[in-house]
């Protein structure tokens, strides 16, 4: 039993840390704290830098361009990215569609799509949820009908993250309505520029445009863009869910969040002391840190099991539930810490001149971030669904 990382892993951590220090673009540092949002170019610029280094796809097999890291190294890498508060590497291409393509795709599909995902040339989005199919994803109704060597796709997807930037999307569609729901679904890769696709923004509680509705009307998709066999799409979807889960708990990002929260609470005054000296607030911070330690060591236990060659189990549901609860709690306490200055809304209405910070800069995004982070216990399989998975798969209930 040993708590420490090996000297090789420690050296690896140093290497990663140095690379980030020396290469992370200056103009992206602290951007979110100043009330701005990540642009498409922001995401891509860091993607390309990591791509050139060969580090953008940590979990990919080396034959497709992965770095050949161990599970521990991948963990360290994601921890260092979070520590430095970098713009995230979006999962849709690198860690969602690519593993499906290299696991189930044809040699032609691999050659065509994987290099462009690695380089950042293609931006991917995920066409899963529908207005009537959220938690009950298998009830999806967007249908694809064969017409010669094409599918003709009709239907509506929703909550499609950053589809406004997307070149390609991977879609679950119904190809057979006569069988059990899960057995009539196929996995299609669709060029987002195909005629018949309309992307409409959905504005969320923090005023963000992160998600979209995607309407598909007689969209013609070449049959060669189907991954895996017809009606085997649910296999791809399930594989994707159980696949790469490193970082799902968001431990490192939460550590960073708590550091910022501590700094805010040390700055905010509560009478003749700082807020962090208020026993009520201090107690809540302490509980949060304890919860995070429990999450971290649960994740490390999983990591150690994985490193010892054991297959990943349903503990990813535990990591998702507890990880998102902690992320939400951090934003809740941050909003509480900033007091009155949680109320000013940093986005002016329309052309209002509300461009300069009201109150301290760290208060600027406290409310919108609290609102926005409510999504984390809803998306990616809601926390109710995740508890259902544990009840069924782990407890056997």
């Amino acid at each position, binding site marked *: 039993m040993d708590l420490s990382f090996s000297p090789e892993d420690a050296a690896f951590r140093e290497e990663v840390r140095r690379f980030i220090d020396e290469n992370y673009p200056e103009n992206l540092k602290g951007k979110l704290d100043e009330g701005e949002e990540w642009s498409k170019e922001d995401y891509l610029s860091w993607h390309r830098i990591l791509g050139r280094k060969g580090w953008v796809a940590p979990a990919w097999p080396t034959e497709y361009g992965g770095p050949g890291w161990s599970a521990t190294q991948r963990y360290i890498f994601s921890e260092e990215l979070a520590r430095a508060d970098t713009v995230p590497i979006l999962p849709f291409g690198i860690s969602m569609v690519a593993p499906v393509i290299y696991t189930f795709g044809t040699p032609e599909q691999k050659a065509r799509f994987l290099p462009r995902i690695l380089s950042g040339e293609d931006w991917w989005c995920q066409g899963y949820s529908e207005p009537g199919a959220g938690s009950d994803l298998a009830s999806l109704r967007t249908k694809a009908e064969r017409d010669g060597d094409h599918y003709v796709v009709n239907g509506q997807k929703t909550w499609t993250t950053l589809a406004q930037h997307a070149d390609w999307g991977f879609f679950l569609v119904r190809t057979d309505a006569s069988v059990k729901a899960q057995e009539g679904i196929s996995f299609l890769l669709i060029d987002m520029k195909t005629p018949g696709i309309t992307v409409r923004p959905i*504005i969320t509680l923090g005023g963000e445009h992160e998600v979209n509705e995607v309407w598909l009307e007689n969209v013609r998709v070449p049959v060669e863009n189907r991954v895996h066999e017809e009606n085997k799409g649910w296999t791809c979807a399930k594989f994707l869910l159980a696949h790469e889960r490193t970082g799902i708990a968001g431990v490192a990002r939460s550590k960073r969040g708590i550091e910022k929260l501590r700094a805010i609470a040390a700055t905010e005054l509560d009478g003749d002391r700082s807020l962090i000296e208020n026993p009520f607030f201090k107690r809540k911070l302490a509980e949060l840190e304890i919860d995070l330690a429990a999450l971290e060591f649960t994740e490390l236990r999983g990591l150690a099991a994985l490193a010892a060659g054991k297959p990943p189990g349903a503990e990813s549901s535990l990591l998702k539930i507890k990880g998102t609860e902690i992320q939400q709690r951090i934003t809740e306490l941050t909003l509480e810490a900033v007091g009155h200055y949680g109320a000013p809304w940093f986005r002016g209405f329309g052309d209002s001149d509300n461009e300069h910070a009201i109150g301290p800069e760290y208060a600027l995004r406290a409310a919108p971030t609290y609102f926005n982070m409510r999504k984390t216990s809803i998306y990616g399989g809601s926390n109710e669904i995740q508890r259902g998975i544990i009840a069924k798969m782990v407890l056997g209930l």
Partner: protein
Amino acid sequence: MDFSYTETQTMVRDTLARFLADRYDHETRMKISRGDGWSPDIWKAFAEELGILAAPFAESLGGLGGGAVENMIVMEELGKALVLEPYLSTVVIGGGFARETGRTDLVESIIAGGVTTAFAWAEPKGRFDPANITTSAKRSGSGWTLSGHKAVVRDAPFASHLIVTARTGGGQREQAGVSLFLIENGAKGVVRRDYPTADGGRASEVYFENAEVPGEALLGETDGAFPLVSRIIDEATTALCAEAVGVLRELHRQTQDYAQQRKQFGQPISKFQVLQHRMVDMFMEAEQAASMALMATLKLPDPAAVSMAKAKIGKGLTLSGQEAIQIHGGMGMTDELAIGHYFKRATMIESQFGNTDWHLQRYEALAFGEAA
């Protein structure tokens, strides 16, 4: 014991509810929010068609002979419709100060709808303590000169007058040495930065840059206004608790409606026991909030009861707001649905006039005899 409303009280509630259903639906509310942040037409209707601006005042002041119960009734209805107009700032707070200082003229102007007030009490470094004041007022000739910065003054962008706490003596956190001023908004030396708030209202940072105000701007006693300030803040907090009841009832109602319509796995999601229990919790929070708002109202001016109510309701607001979004799922995250706006208002009420922790600590100090 009798908690039933009088005929007049029932009429006030029903007329207001009907008016808001007809003239203040969610779409209208959002239009007002994105426009000027309040509607002078609605305010005029409150004054002239409904007469609710007169509800909590004695007949001798030109009112309908009501008091805190009337404020409670009105505020709960305003909470249900997320009304943006400044009833709390003007009628409860401005009217409260006017009543207590014998300013019949001011009460009359408020009832008529001509005067609206915003209450400038909080300061950037004062957190929730109304005695933590650095804004100063110094005598100059027959008047006063004010200097300082007031934080997040709700409704200040459009109010006709500001009510300002300032230090005429004493140290930064002392209760002695606090005075109160009624100042015309836009007076010379009063500088505002206006902005929208997270719950769709309006507020300002207000800076007094050697603002010269006349002697008659003083409300109440020089140096001795703190007990009055504290009392009116308690009345305001109690009214805010009643608004919270309206918000909590709507969070529950709208969530239950949605859950009964939304089908997944072949049935309405309201059939899942795990969600049923959580909606029951939301219902219980609303009921307990109604009880606490009533208790605080009937016990005014008991500060311990006010802090008990605000602390209890603050927790309920957090729980119900979060559950409402969670049970709505993705739809709850959209700006388009009303539920998100109830969640935002619930979140803001939690910290208005002191958050849950602040009122818990205040209650502890009052109930266990610690120094506050």
